[in-house]
C-alpha cells in the first residue's frame, strides 16, 4: 500500500531539454484550437477497435489501407465495428459531458480521410531531433 507520495511522481523534464519540446507543445496547442478533446480521441479509439494501452504491431496512425489483414487482426480487438451509439456510450463512461453518437469520428486520426497532417509542422524543425524521440523507460524489451 502506498501511503506517501514518492518524490519521482512529480518529476519533470530537465530544464535544458524543455525547449526541445516546444514544437510538440505547439502542435498540441494547434490540436486543441482545432477542437480536439479527450472525448473525440476516445471515440476514434473505439471506432478503430483498438486499445491504446495494449501492445500492438502498428501505431494507430499506421492502421489504414494497405495493411495486411492478419496485422489488422492483431491490432483490432474485434472483427465487428461497434455502432456509433455503442461508441458514444463508452466515451460517456470515461469522460465528462454529453457525448453524442453523431460526434463519433468527428476528428479523424491519421491516416483517415479528414485527418490533419500535423507531422509536417514539427518534422522539419531541427530542434526536434531524433534524439528527443525518447522511448519510454522500461525494464523489459519489446
Amino acid at each position: 500500500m502506498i501511503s506517501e507520495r514518492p518524490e519521482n511522481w512529480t518529476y519533470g523534464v530537465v530544464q535544458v531539454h524543455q525547449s526541445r519540446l516546444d514544437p510538440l507543445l505547439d502542435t498540441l496547442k494547434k490540436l486543441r484550437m482545432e477542437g480536439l478533446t479527450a472525448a473525440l480521441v476516445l471515440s476514434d479509439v473505439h471506432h478503430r477497435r483498438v486499445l491504446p494501452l495494449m501492445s500492438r504491431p502498428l501505431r494507430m496512425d499506421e492502421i489504414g489501407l494497405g495493411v495486411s489483414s492478419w496485422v489488422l487482426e492483431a491490432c483490432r480487438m474485434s472483427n465487428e465495428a461497434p455502432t456509433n451509439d455503442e461508441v458514444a456510450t463508452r466515451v460517456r463512461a470515461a469522460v465528462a459531458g454529453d457525448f453524442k453518437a453523431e460526434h463519433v469520428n468527428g476528428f479523424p486520426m491519421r491516416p483517415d480521410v479528414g485527418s490533419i497532417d500535423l507531422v509536417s509542422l514539427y518534422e522539419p524543425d531541427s530542434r526536434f531531433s531524433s534524439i528527443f524521440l525518447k522511448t519510454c523507460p522500461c525494464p523489459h524489451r519489446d
Partner: protein
Amino acid sequence: MRSPFSHLKMVVRLVAADDWRPSSMTERRLLELEREGLLRPRTSSSWPEWIAPAADHREPRLPTGYVVSFTKFHHHGLGAPPSRFMRALCHHYGVELQHFSPNAITIAAVFAAVCEGYLGMMPHWDLWLHLYRGELFNAPTGTTGVRKPVLAGCLNLVLKTGKTDRPRKYIQVGLSSNHAGWVSQWFYLRNDDGLLPAYTGA
C-alpha cells in the same frame, strides 16, 4: 487576502485502509467484456487470458502469473499484453496495476492515442513528464485531517499547472466523476511474460 498561516501544511493522520470488497465479476460478465472487444478471447484452458475470481475469494488470491485488473480499466483503454508506455508508467511510478485509478488509465490512454493517432509517433516520455504528475489519493474518513490509504486506485495522474500555460497547450480532458462500484469489479488478468509488476497485495 492571504492567510498568515497559508504556508503551514495541514497535518493529515492516516488510519488503516479498508479491506478489499468481494468481486462482483463473474465469468458471464467477463465474457460480455470479451464480446465487446475489450478483453482478449481465452485461448488456453491451462493458462487462460483472464479468470473470474472464485466465489470464496473475498480478496484477490491470484494464481501465479496473473495480476489484478478491473473492468473499468479495459473500458478506458487498457489491453493485454500491455504497451511499452503502460509498462513504463508502472515502472516510473513504482506501482502495480491495481494502484491506478480509472481516470489515470483514461488519461494515459488518451495521451498514447494523441501521440500515435495525431502526432504520428510512439508515446513521448519527456512530453508525458512535462505535462503530467502523479498524485496520491487517500480516501476521506468523514473526520477532518484523517484519511485512509486505499488498496486500489491510489495513483491519480494530474495535468501540471503553475507558472506556465501548460494546460492550454494540451487538449481538453474532462474526466468522468462517476466510477461507482469500480473497486468491486476486479478479476485476474494474465500477466504475459511478467511484463507488468507482480501483484504483492501491498
